[in-house]
């Protein structure tokens, strides 16, 4: 193995340390934490694109489903809402699912063309109205329960760490549905279908108040680590902080971030090891064989569509886990903050820049691009101030340029992506 990858990782670590020295450790740790999460998302996309050549532009949707899992698992249930309409709502959802299953079963029956289509249509349209008739009153009842504070069913009240695997499962379920419909067709169709599912997931999160309070946001998701304020109150911690030469307030914020970083690093390590093992296994070889030549692989008896479905679900699940972790870190679910450019396309830049097909590359790309994403804004502002320093303070161009520095990010990311694709299409750490 060449020295390239380790050297690049050391350089990345130095970048973060330098950020800590210049701009403060608080920012450095913040970048590190989101970098760890980005690295996991990037691993998920690398599974799909790097291993199997699947083009998923719905990362945002899977990440948001992970976030939803954090709410559904960790928040305490709202008993009044459950009494008001919880069971009716579950019944309505079960009815909806039953209609869909019946429709699929009707479709699978190998009899009569037109009759089957009519039955299917009647089933779906009738089922839809029945579903709405059952769902709407339940939703109204639930959303009427103390809408300013709850107005939703709440979660299960379990430890928030449980939500990480649950987030993966939710994302895997969504991926299964999409994969069933769009895999096996041309590659662009999967892209469009995933683009669509991501928008729909966000629309559901924004509008279904009974589920996660919609745009009213869910705040105060329980933490897996202690609260700063509790640390500051504890005698032992204050003494220890003094030992490090820090005041308790700074020490507690840093310590909480370090704890998060430890948790995230553990998850990243597990997923990275699993991904490496998968890549080196016969399964990984088969995946790459399918990616490089689908026709030859299927001639060798490999079921290309089934394998694609498998890896698509796995990769989406990894994105879901990362999404649950991110919402845990934020402590809140804000559906309005999910933007495709930030959560889908940025992850793609990470994978391409890092080196598609190489897990270490994906991880490195996750850290590097996240660091850049955070840094471009202050750097851009600084550059703009330099450019405009000769102009009068009230010059409109000066004001416009300084305001526009905030939008430097997207352009920078686009240019980086285009440059890497053109001059180093295999990324920083190429696949062997």
């Amino acid at each position, binding site marked *: 193995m060449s020295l390239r990858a380790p050297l690049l990782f050391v350089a990345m670590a130095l970048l973060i340390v330098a950020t800590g020295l210049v701009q403060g450790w608080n920012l450095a740790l913040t970048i590190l934490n989101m970098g760890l999460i980005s690295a996991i998302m990037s691993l998920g996309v690398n599974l799909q694109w790097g291993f199997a050549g699947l083009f998923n532009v719905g990362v945002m949707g899977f990440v948001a489903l992970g976030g939803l899992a954090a709410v559904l698992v960790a928040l305490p249930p709202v008993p009044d809402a459950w009494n008001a309409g919880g069971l009716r709502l579950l019944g309505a959802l079960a009815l909806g699912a039953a209609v869909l299953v019946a429709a699929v079963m009707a479709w699978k029956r190998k009899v009569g063309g037109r009759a089957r289509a009519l039955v299917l249509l009647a089933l779906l349209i009738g089922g839809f109205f029945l579903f709405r008739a059952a769902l709407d009153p339940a939703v109204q009842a639930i959303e009427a329960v103390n809408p300013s504070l709850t107005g939703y069913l709440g979660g299960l009240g379990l430890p928030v760490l449980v939500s990480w695997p649950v987030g993966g499962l939710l994302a895997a379920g969504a991926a299964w549905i999409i994969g069933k419909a769009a895999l096996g067709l*041309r590659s662009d169709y999967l892209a*469009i279908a995933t683009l669509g599912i991501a928008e729909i997931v966000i629309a559901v999160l924004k509008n279904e108040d009974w589920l996660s309070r919609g745009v009213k946001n869910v705040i105060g998701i329980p933490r897996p680590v202690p609260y700063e304020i509790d640390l500051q109150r504890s005698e032992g911690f204050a003494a220890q902080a003094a030992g490090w030469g820090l005041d308790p307030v700074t020490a507690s914020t840093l310590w909480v971030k370090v704890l998060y970083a430890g948790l995230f690093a553990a998850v990243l390590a597990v997923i990275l090891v699993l991904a490496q093992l998968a890549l080196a296994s016969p399964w990984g070889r088969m995946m790459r064989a399918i990616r490089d030549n689908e026709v030859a692989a299927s001639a060798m008896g490999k079921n290309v569509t089934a394998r694609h479905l498998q890896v698509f679900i796995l990769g989406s699940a990894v994105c879901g886990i990362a999404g649950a972790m991110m919402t845990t870190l934020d402590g809140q679910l804000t559906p309005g903050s999910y933007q495709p450019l930030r959560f889908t396309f940025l992850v793609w830049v990470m994978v391409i820049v890092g080196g598609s097909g190489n897990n270490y590359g994906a991880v490195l790309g996750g850290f590097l691009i996240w660091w850049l994403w955070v840094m471009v804004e202050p750097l851009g502002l600084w550059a703009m101030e330099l450019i405009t320093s000769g102009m009068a303070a009230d010059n409109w161009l000066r004001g416009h340029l300084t305001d526009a520095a905030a*939008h430097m990010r*997207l352009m920078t990311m686009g240019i980086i992506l285009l440059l890497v*694709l053109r001059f180093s299409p295999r990324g920083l750490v190429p696949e062997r």
Partner: protein
Amino acid sequence: MTDILNALVALSNFVLIPGAAYGAQLALGALGVTLIYGILRFSNFAHGDTMAFGTMATILVTWGLQSVGISFGFLPTALIALPVGIAITGLLLMGTDRTIYRFYRKQKAAPVVLVIVSMGVMFVYNGIVRFIIGVGDVNFADGARFVITAREFKEMTGLDEGLAIRSTTLITLVTAAIAVALLFWFLNRTRTGKSMRAFSDNEDLALLSGINPEKVVAVTWLIVAALATTAGVLYGLDKSFKAFTYFQLLLPIFAAAIVGGLGNPLGAIAGGFVIAFSEVLITYAWKKVLEYALPESLEPSSLVQLLSTDYKFAVSFAILIIVLLFKPTGLFKGQSV
């Protein structure tokens, strides 16, 4: 009898006319996507942002015209600015092709690589638009707002329901019809248009018969610039300009192009209207129309809205999935690779 008329008027006012305008805008967008797919053979993710860029260029020219006191009477000034906007967008697209896409074309890169490249282009265009005009809402429609207002219509006909025809709706339909007619005339009647169709049908055969691929590609980008800018400006006049909304139009536009059959211009137009009308029909609250159309005993108590308007993406998505499952080449036969 008047009840039926009222129902019809309400239906046209809230469903048919807005649906037709939206459909025309989507059709123009989908035509651009489908042309790029047919000639350059990749799905252009930057199309939404191309539309945003073209609209932005047109808005800037409009502002320039307005500041020197030029207006277009009761028509929006943006229509005079449109050709300039198209020219600017054409320059941008040709420049992008020269610096970026041509390299991959020469390499005969896989389509999916070009899709990823177009993602990078999307970032850059989006950055440019945000950089120049910002992220806020820009309303640049001027001129007369209505051809007929609801009140005038009520006075004219004596019906309870008003039919308001906004001038932007009419402009959208007329402009789209002209654009489509020009496009089909060009594709079917001119030498360059015929060479484009030949190139799309069979690249190797076209090259053998001496068609210059670079010229075909350049003309395609120019046409795409015209279509995208027109679609964007019409959408912006009808609603308002906001960079992010244009990015989100990508989904219904792609759905329209795929439903019609990728690479098939006629299909793109049909697909645009299919998607637009399904969106409007499914997210419209039918209470008003049904109140007029049904006898009193059957009148609905709820809004009779199948899905809330926030789920309009779900509609284009559902249609897309249905088409993918049952007819992957689209309603009109498109290409499938």
